[in-house]
């Protein structure tokens, strides 16, 4: 079984195009002055058509992290144990990633990380996190 790859949709296409170029893009509502992720058609707070794409500086901290010992399917069995984290980017949005350069027990809540991109097949570059040592 192959790893499930993202299939970009109309609202996420700019995000994945950015990833392929090494850019972490996110939607910013110019009315609410807040970042939003995952991408939507409209701002989830004011519901206005006031979103613009911005580039993140790719730095953040770990909001929470778990180490997965029991993979959900065959695609991830060989990788286990692996960790999954929720990353709070400095621009105020949250991303799920794996943490690629850490021993599973090394990644802790509050630790600073930077976002890198992993080529996972197709045209997809997947945002991932590395501990900012």
């Amino acid at each position, binding site marked *: 079984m192959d790893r499930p790859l993202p*299939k970009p949709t109309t609202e996420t296409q700019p995000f994945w195009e950015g990833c392929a170029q090494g850019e972490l893009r996110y939607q910013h509502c110019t009315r609410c002055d807040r970042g939003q992720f*995952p991408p939507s058609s409209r701002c989830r707070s004011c519901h206005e058509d006031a979103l613009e794409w911005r580039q993140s500086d790719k730095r953040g901290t770990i*909001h929470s992290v*778990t180490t997965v*010992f*029991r*993979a959900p399917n065959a695609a991830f069995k060989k990788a286990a144990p692996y960790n*999954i984290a929720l990353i709070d980017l400095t621009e105020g949005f949250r991303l*799920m990633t*794996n943490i690629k350069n850490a021993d599973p027990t090394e990644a802790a809540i509050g630790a600073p990380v930077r976002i890198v991109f992993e080529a996972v097949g197709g045209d997809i570059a997947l945002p991932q996190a590395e501990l900012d040592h």
Partner: protein
Amino acid sequence: MAAGAIISGVHGTRVGALPDSSCMSLHDAAARGAIADAGLSPGDIDGVICAYSLTEPHLMLASWFCEYFGLSPDVCYSIQAGGATGAVMLSQAAALIENKNCRHVLLVAGDNRLTGLSRDGAVAALAKVGHSQFEQPYGISIPAAYGLVAARYMHEYGLEPEHLAATAVALRAHASRNPDAHMSEPITVQDVMNSPLIAEPLHLLDCSLISDGGGAVVVSSPATQTDLPHRPIEIIGTGQGHTHEHIVAAPSLTDYGCKRSSSAAFEKAGIKPSDIDIAQIYDSFTITLVVELESMGFFERGEAGPAILNGALALDGVLPCNTHGGLLSHGHPGAAGGVFHIVEAVTQLRHTAGDRQAGSPELAFVHGDGGILSAHCSLVLARG
């Protein structure tokens, strides 16, 4: 307040590995049991609400069930709200009765996900509730999402792995008094801590079971209650709260919609959490139950864990909880798992729970949660 709808009948099938069952045979057995328990005939049922099934992912499960069973009701549809489905079905049934759309509404759920899919198959199917673009590519599973919840909750409120383990132990103790439970062998805190890690900090015994089984409830008009064999159980409060689906998009990892759903249910019932005698609260994982107990006002933040270690959820504890064993030990056959929480609340309020009867309760609280603490529905039930 005077109840606009009552629960007249309940039934749960056996749970566990039931290799001779199918999705529809479990629906059928649960439904026939609940209709008989209410002293009714199939022809009395004029409303049917079903849920969903992993083994039969059909678009019109309720219509198919009616065809299979032999019913042609006035109202018929399915509801999908993950683990909140059972409670949402009950509140919708109550609304149909209160609005005089129906006199007797049957709600029924069942799934043979253990023998129909295998445990691996069910785990893989359930992992697909993860976001296809922003979660699944990282190997998310439902236990992993709840592992993220647990890690943050421990970080903020000092919850310890022993507290989670004690939750599993308390529910297994209840299951040991329930001859129908999928898992009834008593366990210790050390057994939970020594069981394999699934997604840190959650061990195998912190996770609910995967079971075959079915559950059903008949909700009736109070006008019919003189004809009914059992003491009516009144539905006196319902409430919902919905904030997100995917954990990556949750507004908070510690505050969830259960606060809103329970506040609404308590307010409608005109009571407060401390008035509740017994609780049947969704326990997909040990962390689920701890977060919900603290969010809904049964315990202060950080206090449920130590209280559970001291026996708070036992039959003689301050809040006897999930007295059938819950999803963690009685069994988790999908949407029917949430129905079993209702079945147990009714059994306790009728004072017919036998060896696991928790005193003489008058008021019960039931709560279901779907997704990753995403969709919440709370109920307050009263012995009529």
